Structure formats: structure tokens, C-alpha cells
């Protein structure tokens, strides 16, 4: 907004970290008020992080982040390596705590429910918040069908429903046409891009409300990457998407909103266009213009 000397940026930074972002906080309350216990309309649900900190032992990798991810949107998280973007995202489905000595503080709200609340079951959290990982990780000993059905296997859903959901998820992941004739073949026979879409289908089959993607294209070639990016655009109708990427062009292509993180702190949140063209924070500007990172 106003490219001012270092004074102004020095003030802007602590403001963000203490949660003083006027644009975002109202959004959280809005959602809280509108939050209904029923299953949300297509488009997933809003996620709000409130004073979220994440630790590895004594090291604080994410520092009191306040941000919300809107339903029906794609939010990209960018920042240099080690800035805590993956860690932050892994707190949203409580995968972070799987690491020895890792823990998180603060709140992650979906609707009005705090995922770190005392009555919340971590297994249920991960059903509501799906995740796609950096490297495609289909179950190597399972068929394509079984891979997609894996998350449904222990829910006791009837066979016919599983069939329908597997088909639906594969279609949603844009993989149906490619694999419909070989559902009983191994997932490991697919190409890297197909495997990653298989993993997306697997996550979608559980019908999550939020889908986290942790650098989903970093192990893929440009063509496969493009397919995944197109897919992300389609999927946001269905789930709230939070994507971590170290590729700024990718963020610019897929995201409605972009979050910039640095050293575990949230530096700036804004519409993708604005963040890349007229960032408010000097550090954001230096990063998006390629001066560091």
C-alpha cells in the first residue's frame, strides 16, 4: 500500500505475529457465527489458526501464527526452506505431533471446533482434514482400487458405497479415465504424476472438509505438475485447499490467497495478486522479487 522506509515495516511485522491483522480476524468471527453443526455446503470449511506455535523439542518452528483459510478457496503458503510452512500445515491435521518431541500450542478452528481441544480425537481430525504429501506415497502392496478405498476400509461402509466413493474420488482426481480398466493393478505401476493423483483420490475418498497439500508437485515433472494444478482449481469447489509450495509461480497460478512466512512467523497474508504485485511488507517484496530465498 505505502512503500515507506524501514520504520513502517518494522512495525508491521510484530502486528502480524500478535494477531493484529484487521482483515483476517473478523473473518474468523464471521465464520464462527455462521458455523453450523451440519455438514457444510460444497466448498469445504473454513480453517482458522489462532496463536498457533509449533515446537520441535525446544525449538519453536512456528511462532504464534494467526491466519484463516477461507472455504472454497485455495490458499498457498510460500516462504524459503525452513520457514515453518510445512510444520504449520502439519499442525492443521495434527500430523506434526507424530514426530518425536514435537508439539503444538494454540488453536486450530474448523467451524467452532478447536482441533486441539480436549474431546477431539486425532483420528477424526485426520478424516476431516486430508493430506497429500511431498512424495507420492501410494500403498505399494495394494491395488489402485484398494489404495483409494484404504481410508474407508475401517469405517464399516458397505461395499456398494465404497465402490461409489472410489469411483467418485478417482473421477474428482482426474484419474478415472486412465485407470478404470486396471483398478486391480498395483498403484506402484503408475507414473509419478498418476501416483500423486492417486494419493489425492485416496484423500478425497474419505470426504474431508479441508485438503492440505505439502509441496505436492516437488517430485513431479512440469506436465504432471500442470495436471495437478488444474486439478487443484477444480477441487476447491469441493474442499478448502491449503497448499505449501516453494515455487512462487505455482502459488501465483493456483492460489486465491497467498501467505508468506519467514523464520516461523507469518509475514503477510493477502490476495495472491496483491501479494505478488504490491506487497505491504518489505520482506515479502524482497522474497517475491527473488532477492532472497
Amino acid at each position: 500500500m505505502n512503500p515507506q522506509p524501514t520504520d513502517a515495516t518494522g512495525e508491521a511485522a510484530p502486528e502480524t505475529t500478535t494477531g493484529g491483522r484487521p482483515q483476517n480476524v473478523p473473518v474468523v468471527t464471521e465464520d464462527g457465527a455462521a458455523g453450523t453443526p451440519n455438514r457444510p455446503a460444497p466448498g469445504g470449511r473454513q480453517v482458522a489458526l489462532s496463536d498457533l506455535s509449533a515446537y520441535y523439542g525446544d525449538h519453536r518452528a512456528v511462532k504464534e501464527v494467526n491466519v484463516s483459510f477461507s472455504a472454497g478457496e485455495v490458499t498457498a503458503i510460500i516462504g524459503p526452506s525452513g520457514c515453518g510452512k510445512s510444520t504449520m500445515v502439519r499442525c492443521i491435521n495434527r500430523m506434526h505431533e507424530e514426530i518425536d518431541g514435537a508439539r503444538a500450542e494454540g488453536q486450530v478452528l474448523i467451524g467452532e471446533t478447536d482441533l486441539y481441544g480436549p474431546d477431539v480425537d486425532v483420528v477424526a481430525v485426520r478424516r476431516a482434514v486430508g493430506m497429500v504429501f511431498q512424495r507420492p506415497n501410494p500403498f505399494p502392496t495394494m491395488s489402485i482400487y484398494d489404495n483409494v478405498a484404504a481410508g474407508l476400509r475401517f469405517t464399516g461402509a458397505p461395499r456398494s458405497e465404497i465402490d461409489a466413493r472410489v469411483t467418485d474420488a478417482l473421477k474428482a482426481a482426474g484419474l478415472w479415465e486412465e485407470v478404470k480398466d486396471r483398478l486391480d493393478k498395483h498403484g506402484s505401476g503408475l507414473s509419478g504424476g498418476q501416483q500423486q493423483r492417486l494419493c489425492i483420490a485416496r484423500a478425497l475418498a474419505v470426504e474431508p472438509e479441508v485438503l492440505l497439500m505439502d509441496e505436492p508437485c516437488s517430485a513431479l515433472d512440469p506436465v504432471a505438475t500442470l495436471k495437478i494444478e488444474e486439478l487443484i482449481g477444480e477441487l476447491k469447489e469441493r474442499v478448502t485447499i491449503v497448499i505449501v509450495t516453494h515455487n512462487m509461480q505455482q502459488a501465483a497460478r493456483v492460489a486465491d490467497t497467498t501467505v508468506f512466512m519467514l523464520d516461523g512467523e507469518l509475514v503477510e497474508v493477502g490476495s495472491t495478486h496483491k501479494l505478488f504485485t504490491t506487497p505491504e511488507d518489505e520482506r515479502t517484496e524482497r522474497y517475491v522479487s527473488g532477492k532472497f530465498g
Partner: protein
Amino acid sequence: MEAATHQVSSGGRPRLGRSPASRLPDRALRYGLTALSVAVLALLAYFFVKLAVESRLVFEEEGVLSYVFANNWNVADSIYGALPLVVGTLITSALALLFGVPVAVAVALFLTELCPRKLRGSLTIVVDLLAAVPSVVYGLWAFYFLIPKLKPVEQWFADTFHFLPFVAIGSVPGPNYFIAGLVLAIMLLPIVCAISREVLATVPANLKEASLGLGMTRWEMIRISMLPYARRGIVGASMLGLGRAIGETIAVTIVIGDSPTLGHSIFGQGYTLAAVIANEFNEAAANPLHKSALIAAGLVLFVLTLLVNSIARFAVMRSERQSGRPIAGGGGL
């Protein structure tokens, strides 16, 4: 520059060559290790041939097939049919695997997945220490303490489940196949556990995350992500354990009853190939046929071990082929 050139030429060495003396260690290493490996193979072959030659007498007397498959081991009448011993060896080993492997894998899973990190190291050492207890001590312990304690339980089980095959028996004798299997299970536990632990630790983190990320419980993750991946290694570990169980001598000799008859129940008394050798080698010294029969028992034990190992390997290979190979872990795409 000049000085360097001068030095090289005065050493009589071309720039890119090496003196024969400096190449010597390489050669010594190569030939030395080759020789040692060949020696091991030669030793194995020698054992096989020697056992075969020495057991010829009993094979000529009884016939190879009837030696192995005749159900009659009667030293007094000089009749040597080793079937009770072969069966005893197989039953006790199978029982040992049945009891030992699930516990070993469970302990390995606990140590890799559930155990608090602080306890992990010390618990691992304690489990490994089970292997350091001499087998004769296990035998003694089982004979004096385990047998009296378990006897009522065995009797109850045999009476209650008498309709199951190989369970019914009138009165349970103290030493029997079941006790021997149990003792062997304890003895193979540390080996199977140690290897399973190593194998389970190699399951890629991203495979485990795949299950957890789908909202699976820890047990479901173990079933879906870890056990299929580690299956091959666990089977390999079981085979090593089986090797120990088949060959174990002294503990089994103490608790199996040393009765060269074919038991009709897992609570019956029996004998194993290894135990018969340990018990009778002394009295057989003066009787060439008996001696030969014992050496033949050794040969059968040898072949049995080879056979079981090959079958297990084959089974693993086949199941691998059917289920497709795991994606190569690590490595970029």
C-alpha cells in the same frame, strides 16, 4: 615443477602407474577374502560329505527311506527308524515359531512404534540379553519350574479341548512337545525380535504418514503400512529363528521326555534329532551301527534345515511376485 618431475622420474615410476609394492595390499585383500569365503564353503561341503560317508553303514542296513520314515528307533534291537525324531524336531520347531514369532514381532512393533524414546534403548538391550542366557539354563529352568507350574494348565486344556486334533491325551507328562516348543519360543524370541525391529525401522516415514493422514489408528497404520512392507524381513527373521529351533539341543533334551516314539498329542513325550545325538553319542561309541545311525541323524538334520530354509525362501519370493514389489524407497523421482 621441475623438481616434481625430477622426483617422479628418479623414483622410476610413470606418472599414472603404481609400484607393485603399493598394489600388494589390494591383491592380498582380494585373494585373502576370496580364500576365506572358499574355505567356508569347503567346510560346509566337507561336513556334508563326511556325514554322508559316515552314515553309509546305517543306510545300507536300513535303507535310506526306511531310516528316515520308519517309525521305530530301538537301539537294543539295532533298529533305527528316525521318523519319531524327525517329527519331534518339526513339531517342536513349528510350536516354537507359532508361539515365538507373534510375540517377537509384537515386541519389535512396541519398541519401534509405541515405546517412549527414553525406554527404547534399555528395553532393546534387555530383550537382546535373552539371547545371552545359555540354553542349558533355559532347559533347567523349564524342567524345575515351568513344567510343574504348567502341568495343571496343560491337563485342563487337553481335557477341555480333547476334540481338537493332536490335543487329547490321558495324563499329561511333565516333559513334552509343548514345553519344548515353549522353551524354544523363548530362545528364538530375541533373534526374531532384533531382526524384525531393524526391518520395521526401515519402513519409510512417508508410508506411515500415508495411513495416519487418512485417519487410521496406530494399529491400522501398522497393518496397512508397516507389516506388508516388512513382511519379507519378518519371514527372514523367522527363518533364522527356526534355524535355531531346529538345531537347539540341550534345552530340548531336558524338557522333551526323550522318548523315541511318535507322540499323538502336542502334550505327548517325544524326541528330536539333535536331542538323540546328544543323549546317545557316548554309548554309541562302541557300536558302529548305532554311531552311524546318529551321524545319519545329523545328516537328516542338516538336510532338513536346508529344506525348510529353501521352502521359506521360495514362499517369500512367490508372495513377493504376486503382490508386486514395493516401490523403491528413498531416491528422487
